[in-house]
Every structure is written in structure tokens, then in C-alpha cells.
């Protein structure tokens, strides 16, 4: 069984969550249950998709500019704000007060946002203009039936 220490316990803020393994060392009499050592929990999608629960938000993509990155109109984006945006990340950027999803290009101190669809132009900030990155897209969820 895995148990995470409660958030009230002091943990160095540079450290990842502490995980302690509780070993079962009980001595039992009688016929042992074949399931005794498994002690597993059913797999949970959020375990796979969400690394930083406090920093994770879901957004919905709207439009065609990212189809070559596998992001289609209506897909759900898993966005993690705890990750430092780097070159090549798919990011949520703030553009004219709205959210946009694009690929971040960061070379020689210059930043631009690229679409993953040749029919869309890339977004290059003008002099003195800054692009704000709101979060990094870590996964997409594509529902085939809903």
C-alpha cells in the first residue's frame, strides 16, 4: 500500500512529494488469501495525466491551427502551470486577453508561437511586446463517443 504524507507535514519545498511504502508484515494463521499481497487500487486516469493537481486546469481547444500536433477542434487539453515553459512545448499563451494554444519557439532569446498547421502564420511579438505563457499542455483528451 502506498501512502502519501499529509500536506500538513513539513516538507522541504524543493522536494517532490514524499512517498512512504508501508510493508505488510502481519503474521496470519490459516489459509492465506491469494489477493493479500496485491493491495492494489484500480488505475485512475488522473494519476497518469495529472502530476501537479493544484496547478492543473482543463481547457478545450477550438480551431484548426494545431492539427499536425494532434490537437483538433473540441479536444480537451490538460494544462499544467507548474511546468516551466521551454522550447518545443505546446503552451497556452495569452493573446489579446484570450487563451490560444500554440507551440513555443525560444531561440537566442527570441520567442515566437508556431501553429502546427502550414496554413496558419506564426505569431511573432513586435518590439516591446511580450508574450505571456499561461501554462504548458501536457496531454490532450480526445473523446470519440460522448
Amino acid at each position: 500500500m502506498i501512502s502519501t504524507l499529509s500536506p500538513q507535514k513539513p516538507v522541504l519545498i524543493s522536494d517532490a512529494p514524499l512517498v512512504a511504502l508501508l510493508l505488510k508484515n502481519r503474521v496470519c494463521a490459516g489459509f492465506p488469501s491469494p489477493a493479500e499481497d496485491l493491495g492494489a487500487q484500480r488505475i485512475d486516469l488522473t494519476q497518469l495525466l495529472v502530476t501537479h493537481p493544484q496547478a492543473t486546469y482543463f481547457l478545450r481547444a477550438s480551431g484548426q491551427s494545431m492539427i499536425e500536433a494532434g490537437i483538433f477542434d473540441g479536444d480537451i487539453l490538460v494544462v499544467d502551470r507548474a511546468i516551466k515553459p521551454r522550447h518545443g512545448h505546446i503552451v497556452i499563451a495569452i493573446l489579446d486577453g484570450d487563451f490560444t494554444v500554440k507551440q513555443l519557439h525560444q531561440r537566442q532569446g527570441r520567442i515566437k508561437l508556431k501553429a502546427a498547421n502550414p496554413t496558419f502564420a506564426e505569431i511573432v511579438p513586435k518590439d516591446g511586446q511580450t508574450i505571456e505563457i499561461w501554462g504548458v499542455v501536457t496531454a490532450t483528451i480526445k473523446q470519440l463517443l460522448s
Partner: protein
Amino acid sequence: MYALVDCNNFYASCERVFRPSLRGIPVVVLSNNDGACVARSDEAKNLGIKMGEPWFKVRHLAESHGLVALSANFALYGDISDRVMSLAAGLGVKTEIYSIDECFVTVDGIPGDLVARAHKIRARILQWVGIPCGIGIGPTKTLAKLANHVAKSAERKPGSYPVHLAQVCDLSGLTPPELESVMAATEINEVWGIGRQLTKQLNESGITTVLELVRLDPAMVRARWSVILERTVRELQGTSCIAFDDAPSPKQEIACTRSFGHPVTELRELNEAVTEFASRGAVKLRKQGSQAGQVMVFIRTSPFRKDTQYSRCITVPLRRPSADTAAIVGAALSGLRAIYKPGFKYAKAGVMLLDLQSDTVQQTELDFEEDAGPDRGRLMASLDELNHRYGRGTVLMASAGLAGDRRVWSMKQERRTPGYTTCWAEIPVARA
């Protein structure tokens, strides 16, 4: 040592996480039928909008200054609060959530530079969740509160305090002259627990700054004012008097009151509203493991309208203390029937559960009357479980009516933002 983590303009900040276009624009959040401002962005504060100001009085600023008003979206604020609190807990050992946007953390025995650590946590809350906050640190809760005020003011109004105290302020790290000048620059109404009345009384005695207050003799303060002010003075002097509250004690009363979206005249509609309020109260009651001895019901017209006014309240004692929805709704409805008069435009109704006691202590009595009936605890537990699993209002008392949000008395919330983090159909959209 205590740290107080307090979010800046919390409701407005929550809205701005998902509406970046609201940054730099005056924003107010309205509550209670879009009636009054319950949160203001800095820009809105700078326009002179006061806390609790009725919306109709500041509505003109929307045209002239681009003021944006939003209905309170408590589902969103609750989720964001939860995220903030769990990150704030990383600051120290124990946390006490004081309100939706602030919590105390005990920071005794934390190694290293506490101020640097607090700055890191603050930056993390801003980066991860998107909410700016201030952190105040001090040897007592009152000093931590004061430190928080300093941290926020130093950031919002440059020049009010030394600039290095902005965002995070540790009063215990200041030299005595520094601490004195901070206290001399702070008016007493900023002190936790000193309200308008007390401020006036103290001012009349010539005490206007925190420095003057902290220099008073506690014994004299107790003799001349009260034990409560004495406690505040001692706390300011560094003696901890307000305990850390690990498990908040169960509420002594539970209230569910609401203003209606539209005037209500019919008893049938009031019945629905009162049933709903009483049911919600009963759920809260069971959650904290209490039973109510009395049920209070009130109805009233709007004092803001020029109609004939009517306001009545009645308290119905229960035969036996109970947490049973049917018993509480029954008492509330019989109370309502007793006070209802036709011909008025009712604007507000409410149910209060009083005389609460623990459900583990039950008084038994000689059985002179009809049987108490079978134990309905399991029925109530099932009711709560169904409503928890399938959503509030899945199973309800028939007298609550079935029209849901289309009920005549439902709240008016015309400017509510989507449930960005609580409803799949309402998550924010990113343009691709």
C-alpha cells in the same frame, strides 16, 4: 510563530485566472441577487467603491470607467481556495483555514530562512494556481495579521511601508526601531479584532496608532475597556493568547437564508423555498453530527421597495432534538403557515436551526406519548449519499417543488461566469 497567508482580492483574482482580459480593469464581484459588491479589484478600490456598496450606486462607473461586475461564482472560488490552501500548507507544520481566502500556518521549528521560504510559497501559489497573495509572519496571530496588512499595503501603496516588506513581512525579523516605525505608521482599525466602535472609543482617548496601543498597560486596558481588548494588546506585545484552532468547534447555529430573485406572494412558493432551506440546514446539521432543538423561520418584504412592509419570525421547538430532514422541514413549514399573510411581496425568507447539540448525547424520556417511530438515521444517510453521488436535489422533500432553478424564488445571478473548474461543459476555451 504564525504565518498568515491571505489572497489578494480573492474573488476578483479567481475570475482573472480564466479571463486574462479582466487584468488591469476595475472588477467587482456581486453577491446576493447581484445586489452588492462583495469583492473589488485594486482598480475598483481606487475608484472609491466600498465593500458592500449596492450595485445600483456604482453601476454608472461601468459606462464611465469600464467597471466590470460579475455574479459570485462560489463553485469556482471553492475549488481555487482548495488549491491555494494545500500549497500554503507547505509553509509550515499545521494549518488552520480561517476563511475561504486566508489561513494560518504554524511555522515553529522550520529550519532556514523563513522569509525566503515564504516568498517561494507565495511565488508558487501565484505560478501554479494563478492567485496573488500576501504572507505575514509574527509571534502571535494578531501580529501575523498585522504583518499581512503591512505586506499587502507595502505592495499596493508604495511608500506606505519600507519596500522590502512588500508581499512577505516578518515582524519578528525587524529591529526594535523598525518595528516601532511600522507600528507608528499603522492605524488601530487595521488591528485584528478592533472594529469601528472600538476605534472610535480609542481615538477619543487619544490612541490612534498601533504603537500607542501596544504601549498601553494590559491591566489598565482590562479595567477601562475589556478583557477582549486586553487580549489584543497582549497579542500585539508578543504574548500568544489566541489558540491555534485545530478542529473548529461545531457551529452553534446553522442558517440558510436567501433573497428571492423576484418578489414572491404565494404561500406555495414560500413553502418551496422554506423546504429547501430547511433541508439544506438539516444536511449541514448531520454533517457536523448535531441535532437541532429549535427551528426558526422568517419571511420579510424588501425594505428597499415602497410596498407595505411585513416582517415576521417564529421559533418552533421540536418535540425531540432531531437531524431528520422531514422533522425539520415539518417544523419550518408549520412555522411558516403561522406567520404567512397574503397580500405582501416577500423578498427574503430563511431558516435557522438553533439549540444545537451533539447527536451522541441523547436525552431519553419516559414514554408518555406516541412512539418516536423507527430510527430514520439510515434513511437520512441514504438521502445524503444519493444527493452526494448524483448531485444536490436528486432526492428531496416533495414540498420543495420540482422546478429547480426555474423556481420563482431562485436567486438572480445574471452575470455569473462559467464553472471553469467544476463543470466539463463550461471549461475555458483556447483558440487553436
